[in-house]
């Protein structure tokens, strides 16, 4: 302060005001005067001074009251108030500070001391301005960031309206993210991610992950491939120490595959739709993504067998770590209780949210709270796998082969032993096919056909697993444990895939031959008729027959030929 600054001098004695005016004017201040507290308040509002010199004892309104009012009028701005008082007792001087004053000087005023105190208060005021300015910038950046984040990340969650969810950030930005995306073969992939910390930095980390999740799902990669890719991407993009914990669900009714993965998050619960009893817990089985360059994601993945009506409950640790007024945590016990006691309420999520809110009351939220409920009901199942229209359309009349199909393109790949446990070749094949012929609406069905053929060859041909095992409850879990064990140990066997693509003027045609090294199976035992709905439309091989123009097994059952044709638009 100094030149161009305005000082408000408040004192009931004219001589005191005059004295102060002369000291301040010499320092470059413009001075306005008030005779008592009430006048000071009025002048403060009219003149907006940069500093106030306040006498304590005055008629009408004293300095203490006036200071309290003036400080409340200041809002975010720091306007120093220095008491200039004849009072010398400690209690009175302390009261000056209590009333909102920033400092005091006792009369008679020393001009040296006064100037020194003004300088000290200037420093504080400059600091306060800097803080406020930084904060304003930060808020501004966060608001822009939030808009972009919403667009890119949260914007388009396929099917999100079918899934009950409650996501509440601790601050403007959430470090938790919920994504849904559908693959061409009908996988519905759901990801609940929790990034290190929260706020803007966490949200920034979310963007490469969201990008990768979306892109890879849309390209038809398998869950293992998607999570593996996200891990590599985050490892190379994010600074050391930043990572993504996740709970992941992939549902595909057409190929009968439901799997979950938990990397670094609290238990995923499978809950009975009616009784709300906990049927299964899936614990964290792997490192969060982005911590190490690569790791075997399959340990964190679990295949599930669900009954109609079951709910999958995903939640971040913001739920169990929510803090109550006594400083204790909501905890796992209360969480489980809220789930099991939700019977009678439509959604488990609502019961848990209410319980957490009752526990926390007015306590400030420390971490982002996220909880998601995925119902395994018909409505959601209709969103996965192939759309009914696609299957119905394909099941109709077969296209007459009245034209010579010209095969423009042949692609043959053979996968041996160890390679089989590492990759899913289907997206690669589809990618190549798309280079040759426009797939359009056929893509989803074709993906399903090839995936089904490949998985059969792998599971029943090479790994020699018996799918009958899957039908019992205990059998189901051990089926996938065994499958994983066999895959890890695999170093023999092969799957050979030959694809021929061609088109004539009116039709496009794809022949797929999949041969595996297995001994085959009892071909006669596979009936082309769709088995009566087993509650969840488990399709498998019968679906192949529905979608393809023809399906033929060789004698041994280790070679399958499928022909898929469709009419090209005009």
């Amino acid at each position, binding site marked *: 302060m100094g030149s161009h600054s305005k000082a408000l001098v408040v004192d009931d004695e004219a001589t005191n005001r005059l004295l102060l005016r002369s000291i301040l004017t010499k320092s470059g201040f413009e001075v306005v005067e008030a005779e008592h507290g009430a006048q000071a308040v009025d002048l403060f509002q009219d003149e907006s001074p940069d500093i106030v010199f306040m006498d304590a004892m005055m008629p009408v309104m004293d300095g203490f009251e006036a200071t309290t009012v003036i400080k409340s009028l200041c809002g975010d701005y720091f306007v120093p108030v220095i008491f200039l008082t004849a009072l010398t007792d400690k209690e009175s001087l302390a009261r000056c500070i209590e009333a909102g004053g920033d400092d005091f000087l006792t009369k008679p005023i020393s001009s040296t001391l006064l100037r020194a105190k003004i300088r000290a208060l200037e420093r504080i005021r400059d600091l306060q301005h800097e803080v406020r300015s930084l904060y304003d910038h930060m808020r501004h950046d966060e608001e822009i960031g939030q808009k972009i984040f919403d667009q890119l990340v949260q914007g388009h969650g396929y099917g999100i309206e079918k899934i009950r969810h409650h996501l509440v950030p601790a601050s403007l930005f959430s470090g938790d993210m919920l994504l849904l995306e559908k693959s061409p073969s009908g996988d519905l992939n759901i990801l609940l991610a*929790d*990034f*290190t*910390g929260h706020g803007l930095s966490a949200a920034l980390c979310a963007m490469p992950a969201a990008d990768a999740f979306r892109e890879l799902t849309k390209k038809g990669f398998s869950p293992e491939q998607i999570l593996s890719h996200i891990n590599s991407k985050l490892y190379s993009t994010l600074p*050391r*120490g*930043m*990572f993504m*914990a996740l709970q992941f669900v992939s549902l595909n009714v057409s190929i009968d595959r439901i799997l979950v993965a938990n*990397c*670094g*998050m*609290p238990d995923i619960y499978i809950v009975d739709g009616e009784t709300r009893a906990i049927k299964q817990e899936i*614990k*964290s*089985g*792997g*490192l*969060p993504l982005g*911590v*190490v360059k690569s790791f075997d994601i399959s340990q964190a993945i679990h295949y599930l067998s669900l009954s109609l009506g079951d709910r999958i409950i995903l939640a971040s640790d913001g739920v169990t*770590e929510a803090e109550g007024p006594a400083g204790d945590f909501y905890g796992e016990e209360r969480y489980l209780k809220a789930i099991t006691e939700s019977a009678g309420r439509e959604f488990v999520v609502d019961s848990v949210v209410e319980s957490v809110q009752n526990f926390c009351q007015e306590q400030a939220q420390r*971490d982002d709270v996220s909880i998601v409920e995925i119902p395994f009901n018909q409505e959601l199942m209709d969103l996965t796998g192939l759309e009914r229209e696609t299957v119905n359309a394909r099941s109709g009349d077969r296209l007459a082969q009245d034209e010579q199909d010209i095969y423009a393109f042949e692609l043959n790949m053979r996968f041996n032993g160890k390679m089989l446990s590492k990759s899913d070749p289907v997206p690669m094949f589809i990618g190549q096919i798309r280079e040759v012929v426009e797939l359009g609406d056929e893509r989803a069905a074709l993906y399903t056909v090839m995936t089904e053929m490949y998985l059969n060859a792998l599971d029943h041909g090479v790994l020699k697993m018996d799918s009958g095992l899957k039908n019992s409850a205990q059998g189901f879990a051990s089926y996938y444990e065994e499958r994983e064990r066999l895959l890890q140990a695999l170093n023999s066997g092969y799957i050979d895939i030959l694809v021929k693509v061609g088109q004539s003027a009116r039709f496009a045609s794809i022949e797929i031959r999949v041969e595996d090294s297995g001994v085959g199976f009892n071909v006669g035992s596979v009936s082309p008729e769709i088995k009566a709905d087993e509650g969840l439309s488990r399709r498998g091989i019968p679906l192949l027959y529905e979608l393809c123009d023809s399906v033929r097994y060789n004698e041994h059952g280790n070679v399958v030929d499928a022909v898929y044709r469709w009419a090209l638009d005009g």
Partner: protein
Amino acid sequence: MSVNVESTAGGDVTIKITDKFDFSLHRIFRDAYKDCKSSGATFSVDLSGAEYMDSSALGMLLLLREHAELLGGDVVITRPSESVKKVLTVANFDRLFTIKA
């Protein structure tokens, strides 16, 4: 002080954390080890006094691990409480760090 540092003559460093191991300790924690450049040093993180640990703290441990690896040394986590140990096991950090009771 929430972070206490002890260095031995051999170059090993012990960092003791008390109360909450969270983002507020970010700078002090890093200052505790960043000047230690002894080749092959062992960094011990004593969590016996830590009542709470969050994901930022996990991140801080990863940074320490990177520092130790550059020196050819290692990181040992000692005496975590039940609840803190749980945070480490859920994150599967027992695969990255030796944890001693």
